[in-house]
C-alpha cells in the first residue's frame, strides 16, 4: 500500500471508531429503564450498537462506493480486472469477525451471569398466567391480585407458571422477560429502581386474547407498599 | 469448450466415484429416515427419563426378544437372496425372498400379539405418555416392516418373472438396504425400549 492509501485507511478507521462510540453513547432505542439489572443489559446493548454501526457503515459504505466508483460507463465494454482472491484479505475478514464474536460472546456471557445472579432474601411473588390475565400471589400474606405491586429497591423473585398454554411475562421497562409454561416453574429476578407503574405484556402467543393480556407493575416506596399491602389484606378479610 | 461424448454418458460422474445413483438415493433416503426415527426416539427417551411409568413393567422382553431374533433372521435371508441373485441362482433368490416375507409377517404377527396383550392389560396409546410414545414408536417401525414386506412380495413376483436373471441384482440390493435399515432401527428400539 502506498503511503497515501495507508494514511487514508488509518483516518477512515479512526472516523469509524469515533462514529461507533458516538452511536453507542447517543442512541436511545430502549424504553426508560426501571430496574437495576436493566442497566446491565443497556450497557451490553450499547456495545452491540457501537460494533454494529461500524460494520454496517463499512459494508453499506463499501457497497455504495463500489457501485458509484466501478459503475460501467457508457460505451465501455471492457472486462473487469481478473483476480480470483487474496488470501491475506480473506484471512483478515475471517479473523476480525471471529475476534468480534469472541468479544461479544464473552461480554454477553458476563452480563448474563450478572442479571441472573440470585439476590439475598428476595421477596417471592408467584405469577400465574391464565388466558388472558395475570394473577399475582403473595405467599406470606396469602393475597392474590391482578396487578404486581413491589417496593422500590426490594429484590423480587417471580416464580412463573401457567394454568393453560404458554404465556410470556414481559416488563419492557425492566428489559426482562420469562415464559410462564404450564407444568413447570420458571424464575424471573428484578429489583425495581424507579417509582411508578410500568406495563406488563404477554409476549408468547396464547390465543385470541393475546394482545389484551396486559397488566402493570406498580412500584411503591417501601412505606407505601406496606400501606397498600395492609389495605389489601384488610379488604380480603 | 464442448467436445463430443457418448449420449450413454449420464451418471458417468457417479460411476467414476463408484456410486450408483439409485443406491445413493436410497442411502440419502435412509439418512432422512434416521432423523425421522430420531425425532420419535428422542420423544420416547425424554418421557422414559423424565416421567418413568410403571407400565414399562408390562413389557414382555422374552416375547420381543424372540421377535428380534425373527427380524435378524430375515436380514440374513435378505443377504442370501442378494447373494443368490448375484450368482444368478433364481431358485435361491425366490426361496430367500419368500422366507424374508414369511419372517417379516411373523414379526408383524408377534408385534400384533404384543400390542393386543398390552392393551388387554390396560396400556393403550391414550393411557399415559409412556403408552403414547411406546405405541407411536413401535407402531411406526411396524409400518416400515409392513412396507418392506410388500416390497419383498413385489420383488418375489418380479423374481418369478425372471426379472433378476443374469445377475441383475440391483433391485434386490436396494430392497435389502431398506430392510436392513429397518432391522437396525429395531436393534436400537429393542435396546432403548425393552432393555434399558
Amino acid at each position: 500500500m502506498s503511503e497515501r492509501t495507508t494514511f487514508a485507511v488509518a483516518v477512515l478507521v479512526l472516523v469509524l471508531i469515533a462514529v461507533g462510540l458516538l452511536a453507542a453513547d447517543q442512541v436511545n432505542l430502549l424504553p426508560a429503564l426501571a430496574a437495576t439489572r436493566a442497566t446491565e443489559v443497556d450497557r451490553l446493548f450499547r456495545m452491540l450498537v457501537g460494533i454494529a454501526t461500524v460494520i454496517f457503515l463499512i459494508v453499506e459504505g463499501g457497497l455504495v462506493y463500489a457501485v458509484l466508483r466501478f459503475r460501467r460507463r457508457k460505451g465501455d465494454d471492457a472486462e473487469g480486472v481478473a483476480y480470483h482472491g487474496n488470501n491475506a484479505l480473506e484471512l483478515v475478514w475471517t479473523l476480525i469477525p471471529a475476534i468480534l464474536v469472541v468479544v461479544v460472546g464473552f461480554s454477553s456471557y458476563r452480563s448474563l451471569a450478572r442479571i441472573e445472579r440470585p439476590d439475598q432474601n428476595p421477596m417471592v411473588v408467584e405469577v400465574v398466567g391464565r388466558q388472558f390475565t395475570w394473577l399475582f400471589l403473595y405467599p406470606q400474606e396469602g393475597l392474590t391480585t391482578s396487578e404486581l405491586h413491589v417496593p422500590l429497591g426490594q429484590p423480587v423473585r417471580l416464580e412463573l407458571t401457567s394454568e393453560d398454554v404458554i404465556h410470556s411475562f414481559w416488563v419492557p421497562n425492566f428489559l426482562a422477560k420469562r415464559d410462564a409454561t404450564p407444568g413447570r416453574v420458571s424464575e424471573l429476578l428484578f429489583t425495581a429502581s424507579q417509582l411508578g407503574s410500568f406495563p406488563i405484556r404477554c409476549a408468547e402467543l396464547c390465543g385470541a386474547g393475546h394482545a389484551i393480556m396486559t397488566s402493570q407493575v406498580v412500584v411503591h416506596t417501601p412505606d407505601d407498599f406496606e400501606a397498600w399491602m395492609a389495605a389489601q389484606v384488610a379488604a380480603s378479610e | 469448450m464442448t467436445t463430443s461424448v457418448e449420449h450413454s454418458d449420464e451418471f458417468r460422474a457417479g460411476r467414476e466415484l463408484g456410486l450408483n445413483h439409485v443406491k445413493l438415493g436410497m442411502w440419502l433416503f435412509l439418512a432422512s429416515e434416521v432423523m425421522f426415527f430420531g425425532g420419535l426416539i428422542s420423544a420416547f427417551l425424554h418421557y422414559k427419563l423424565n416421567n418413568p411409568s410403571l407400565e414399562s413393567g408390562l413389557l414382555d422382553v422374552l416375547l420381543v426378544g424372540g421377535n428380534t431374533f425373527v427380524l435378524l433372521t430375515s436380514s440374513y435371508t435378505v443377504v442370501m437372496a442378494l447373494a443368490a441373485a448375484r450368482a444368478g441362482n433364481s431358485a435361491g433368490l425366490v426361496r430367500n425372498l419368500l422366507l424374508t416375507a414369511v419372517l417379516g409377517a411373523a414379526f408383524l404377527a408377534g408385534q400384533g400379539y404384543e400390542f393386543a396383550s398390552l392393551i388387554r392389560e390396560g396400556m393403550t396409546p391414550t393411557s399415559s405418555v409412556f403408552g403414547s410414545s411406546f405405541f407411536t414408536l413401535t407402531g411406526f417401525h411396524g409400518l416400515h416392516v409392513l412396507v418392506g414386506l410388500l416390497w419383498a412380495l413385489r420383488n418375489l413376483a418380479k423374481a418369478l418373472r425372471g426379472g433378476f436373471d443374469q445377475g441383475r441384482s440391483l433391485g434386490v440390493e436396494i430392497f435389502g438396504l431398506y430392510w436392513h435399515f429397518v432391522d437396525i432401527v429395531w436393534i436400537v428400539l429393542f435396546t432403548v425400549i425393552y432393555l434399558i
Partner: protein
Amino acid sequence: MTSSRTPASGAFQTLRRYISWNTDHKVIGIQYLVTTFTFFLIGGALAMVMRTELSQPGVDLLNGAEYNRFMTNHGSVMLFLWIIPVFSGFANFMLPIMIGAKDMAFPRLNAASFWLIPPAGVIMLTSFFVGAADAGWTAYVPLSIQSADGQSLWAVSVILLGTSSIMGAINFVTTTITMRAPGITIWRLPLFVWAMMATALLVIMATPVLTAGLVLVALDRLAGTLFFSVEAGGNPILWQNIFWFYSHPAVYIMVLPGMGIVSEIFPVFSRKPIFGYKMIALSSMAISVLGLTVWAHHMFTSGLDPRLRVPYMITSMVIAVPTGVKIFSWLATIWDGKIRLQTPMLFSLGFISMFLIGGITGIFLASIPFDIHVHDTYFVVAHLHFVLFGGAVSAVYAGLYYWFPKITGRMYDENLGKLHFLMNFVGTNLSYLPMFLAGMLGMPRRVADYAPEFTSLNVLATMGAVLLGSSTLPFIYNAIISWAKGPRASANPWRGLTLEWSVTSPPPPHNFEQTPAVDHGPYDYGQPRQLEQPASAAAD
C-alpha cells in the same frame, strides 16, 4: 419452448404440458416457480389484511382470533409454500443444466415432489373453512393442541410439504454427485449448485425431525395421545426442541440458495471472477453444519437449562463468520468491476444491503441478555423479514430476472424491472425498519392490537407494506407481457459462462446436443479468452 410454436395451438399445447404430470425438469421448474409465486401472492394478501388491521390501535378489521388465523397462515404459506419450494423451482430448472446433465437423477420422483405441493397448499388454505390454524407457524403446544380442526389440516399439509422437499433434496444431491458432465469437478461447480447441496443436506437432516414432531401433534389432536398434554406429564419444551431443530436450519434452507443465486449474478454483472470461490462454497457448507447446532437460541426465555444456553449463544454468533466471509467476498467481487446496474444486479445489491441488517440484528438476538428483552417482539419480526424478505425474496427476484430470458426465451422490460426494484427496496425498508423500534420499545409480536404509543411506527410499517404489495404489480405485468411478446432472447444475453448460457433460450428438450466437457471454472471472466466463447456456444 413456446417461442418455436404458432401462438394459437402452441399456447394451448404448452399450457397442457404445464398443468399435467410431466417429468421434464424444466417443465417441473416452471411449475414450481409459477405455483409458489401464486402462493406468495396469497400470503402477501393475508399480510395486507394484517397490516390494515395494525394501521391503527384497537380492533377494527380483525378480532384477536381472526388475526391469529391470518398471521398463522401468512407465515406458513410464505415459508412452506413460497420461499422453500421456490428455490426448488430454480434448482429444478437450472441445476441439471449447470452441471451438464440432461435431467434430474429421478425424474418421476421429481414430478411427484412437485405434485405434493398444490394439494398441500389447498389443504392448508381450506382450513379457513373449518376454523383455520391459529397457533402461529411455530404451532407451540399446548396452544396448537386446543386450536380448531384447521390445525390438524395444517399439520397434514406441512407434513406433505416436508416430504416434498425431502424428495427434492435427495434428487438434487444424487443428481449433483452422479450426473456431472466430464470436467465439472467439485471445484468447478457453480456456487448456486454448491448452495443447493448445502441446502439439500440440511433438508435431509432436519426436515424429518419436524415431520416426526408434527406426527406427535397430529396424533395428540386426532388419536388422543398424550405427548403434549401437561396434565399427563407431557412437556411443551420437548415440542420447542423438535420444532426449532428443524425450523432454525430452515432459515438457512430459505437463504442459502438465495446466496447461491447472487453469487451467480455478481461476477456476470461486474465482468469479474467471483472473489474467493472456495471460501464462498465452503462457507455455505459451514453455515449448514453450524445451522444444525443453534436451534435452542429460540428458547432463551423458556427457562432452558442455563448450562445449555451459553453454548447455543456461541454457535449462533459463530455463524456470523462464514456469513461475513460471503458478504465481503461479494463486495470484493464487484470491486474493480465494470458494474452493469441491470435489474438482476440491482436486486442482488439490495440483497446484500438488506440481508446485512438481518444478519447484524441476528447477532443482537443471539446475545442472550438482549434477546431476553426483544424475544417474541416486533424486533424479531423485523429481523426475520429482513433476512427472508429483504434477503431471500430479493434473491428470488434477482434470479427471476436473471434467468427470465433463459426460462422463457424472451427479454423482460428493463424499466419496469428497475421500477419494481425501487418500490420493493423502499417498501421493504419502510415497512420493517420501524418494527425494530417498536419491538425494542415494548410491542410484542403476533398481536391484533397494541398500545397507542406504537401508532406512528405501525402507520409507517403499513405504508411500507402497501408499497411492497403494489411493487409486485409491475413485476407481474412485466413477466406476463414479456413472456407473451417480449423481444426474443439470445442464448446468452448476459455473456455468462455457466453452462445454462451455452444452450439456446429456452433450452432444447434434452438440454445438450452432446454432453459438454468443461475445461475451465464457471467464473473465468475478465480474460479475453472467454469473451468469444458464449457466441460460439450460442451458435450450436
